[in-house]
């Protein structure tokens, strides 16, 4: 943690700023103190240049609200990443190419500050601002939902701070709302549809009729569109789609409508508590034992997480198909190195949210080393179109055009209660979908990354 008082000149405002501001109208933007003095070719952007012997990262995760458990796991991963950056170990041994030394970043020791996003866009921005303005972080990372990620991504772009997204799955994060200063390692709804649809048609046949229940917010909409598009390409038809308010806890009124339709597959475009509730409700309605059109009625959950699976209970998710970005049971070197060190530190295996957060931190640090500077535009250029292996998803590309990682992903299935051996294998890997299948053309989504130097 940084000590605020010992760093008074760098934190808060200089007296000059105050006087300038007081004579309102006569001033332009508040210029940082160090603007003229340390004038290298690289000008001051955000909290660059980094002063002192330490560099601070900001970890902004949900600590209160529905995603608090996921946030806690993200924070564990971040702390582990800091430990490895300063002392070696974990994926530092497997990430290639890598310039990480295990001796800090660019000779500076990595420290961190934490904050609570409260899963509230306004609160997450105020928290990120504290890290940026007071604690002088060079990079912010975290988040467990897309709205929050997008809100922070815009803020960080304006302030010239790189934002490494945590768990966010909406197409918009690297689509309509992509920003030059925002990067996403996690996969997205479009990739889910692309990877899942062939598996579904293989498993359930190509003449299915799907009914969608969709959480009425941006992620839900993009997830539903992707699922509809790719299942229809497999020959399925779509019986209907009902938008459900985000706050819904009882889905029986919607399920009643689904049962009255002629659909034989129910797609739940829900995440978190929404998914736990809608799936449990559907099971209570006996939908998993129902026959429609002479076939078994099937339920699909496009985006899976371990916590959601645990929340719904294994009896309810038994056999249900969905996708995940990563799972601790993977046996490649990168995953093993990460899981082993995580288990050694905390006593249980990490979630996919922990994985993406850990990798994001390492990738940022590595980009700084490769660029030889913390200067944001140089770091951004180092991350753009960076090809790497050894981080758990095979050979991966950080695509420069939209800042989306293109990598392999997983189709998952709920484990039956009898096959489950611990609290951490609610889900099993059915298929690893390769990078080429998950890949797509970035130009299908609108949006501009914006300039390398913030306005």
């Amino acid at each position, binding site marked *: 943690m940084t000590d605020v008082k010992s760093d008074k000149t760098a934190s808060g405002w200089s007296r000059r700023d105050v006087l300038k501001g007081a004579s309102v109208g006569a001033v332009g933007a508040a210029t940082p103190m160090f603007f003229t003095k340390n004038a290298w070719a690289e000008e001051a952007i955000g909290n660059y240049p980094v002063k002192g012997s330490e560099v601070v990262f900001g970890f902004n995760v949900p600590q*209160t*609200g*529905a*995603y*608090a*458990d996921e946030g806690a796991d993200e924070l564990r991963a971040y702390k582990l990443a800091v430990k490895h950056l300063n002392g070696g170990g974990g994926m530092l041994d497997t990430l290639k190419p890598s310039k990480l030394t295990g001796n800090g970043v660019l000779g500076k020791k990595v420290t961190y500050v934490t904050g609570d996003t409260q899963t509230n866009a306004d609160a997450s921005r105020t928290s990120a601002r504290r890290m940026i303005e007071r604690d002088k972080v060079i990079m912010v990372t975290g988040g467990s939902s897309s709205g929050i990620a997008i809100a922070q991504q815009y803020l960080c772009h304006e302030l010239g701070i790189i934002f490494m997204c945590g768990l966010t799955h909406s197409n918009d994060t690297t689509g309509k709302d992509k920003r030059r200063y925002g990067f996403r390692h996690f996969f997205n709804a479009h990739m889910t549809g692309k990877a899942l649809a062939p598996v579904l048609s293989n498993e359930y046949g190509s003449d299915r009729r799907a009914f969608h229940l969709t959480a*009425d917010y941006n992620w839900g909409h993009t997830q539903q569109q992707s699922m509809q598009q790719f299942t229809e390409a497999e020959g399925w038809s779509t019986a*209907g789609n*009902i*938008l*459900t*308010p985000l*706050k819904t*806890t*009882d889905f*029986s*009124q*919607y399920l*009643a*409508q689904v*049962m*009255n339709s002629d659909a034989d597959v129910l797609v739940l475009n829900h995440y978190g*508590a929404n998914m*736990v*509730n809608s799936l*449990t409700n559907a099971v*209570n*309605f*006996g939908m998993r034992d*129902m026959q429609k059109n002479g076939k078994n009625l099937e339920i699909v959950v496009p985006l899976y997480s371990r*916590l959601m699976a*645990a*929340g*719904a*209970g294994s*009896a*309810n998710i038994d056999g249900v198909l969905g996708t995940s970005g990563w799972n601790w049971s993977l046996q490649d070197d990168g995953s093993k190195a990460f899981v082993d060190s995580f288990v050694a530190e905390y006593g249980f295996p990490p979630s996919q949210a922990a994985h993406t957060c850990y990798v994001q931190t390492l990738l940022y640090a590595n980009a700084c080393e490769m660029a030889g500077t913390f200067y944001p535009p140089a770091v951004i250029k180092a991350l753009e179109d960076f090809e790497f292996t050894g981080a758990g998803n095979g050979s991966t590309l950080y695509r420069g055009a939209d800042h989306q990682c293109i990598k392999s992903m997983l189709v998952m299935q709920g484990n039956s209660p009898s096959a489950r051996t611990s609290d951490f294998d609610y889900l099993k890997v059915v298929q690893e979908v390769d990078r080429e299948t998950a890949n797509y053309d970035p130009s299908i989504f609108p949006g501009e990354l914006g300039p390398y130097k913030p306005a």
Partner: protein
Amino acid sequence: MFDLSINAFFMQLLTGLQIGSIYVLIALGLTLIFGTLGVVNFAHGALYLVAIYLAVSISDAFGFGLALVLVPAILFVLGLAMERGLIQYFYNRPHTDQILVTFGLAIVIQELLKWIFGANNVPFAIPQWGNGIIMMHEWFPFLEGFVVYPKWRMILVVVSIVTVAAVFALLHLTTFGLVIRAGMRDPEMLKFLGVNINRRFMIVFGLGAMIAGIAGVFGGPVTQVSPEVGMHLLVPSFLVVVIGGMGSLGGAVLAGILIGMAQSFTAHDINLSTIIVYLITVIVLLVRPRGLLGAKGVFE
């Protein structure tokens, strides 16, 4: 999308009834406390929260039967303790103070439960005898083809009806009830008459909490078990109480069912379903100043 077939209509009717049942159970305790004690209790949702966590823990460890007996009893005692330890000092304080202290309590309860159980959902398994579905088309011959409904949700509706009947019986058939009803109308007068209203108020608060306990045991598997549930129910249950009319039990029942039906029958249209509850609130309160069945002079 809107389907007016007999099957769809029947399903939506059942669903409305079942959604309404939970509202009724929670609002019943709230309106009892509201009407008799004059306390705006923002912690009532948190009492329900305590109930569902107790229910799922006891049920997992010792079976559902024990949870059914223990949870309402524990909640009753908890209610007494809460009234004696905290609420009684707020009878003559402004509503804003009551809101602040009970909202603070609700946060404390929610965060403590989160600390113990985590923020994630705890699966609440329905007991074996309540699991499965009811073939509605076998019971109601006018239905076409195959119509099913979860058995547990029907049990919830029945429990709700029984609870409402029991509370009505208590208030209308016993001396205790007579005093309480009189207290709801005019607490001052009762004091002049020398009735020890304080002890009865304590019991009323316990009763309100106990109803939340019953709601938790049967509602837990339906609303699910996570720390957010209490706050989610706070606004709708207050709306139910106010639409029904402050301190009116009949009103709370009527309003609970009304809101449940409104949600069920507008489910096909998100633009309507998200505002319908508030729309009903506005219309009812503008047309009927004290809610559907509210008494004059209460909380005005």
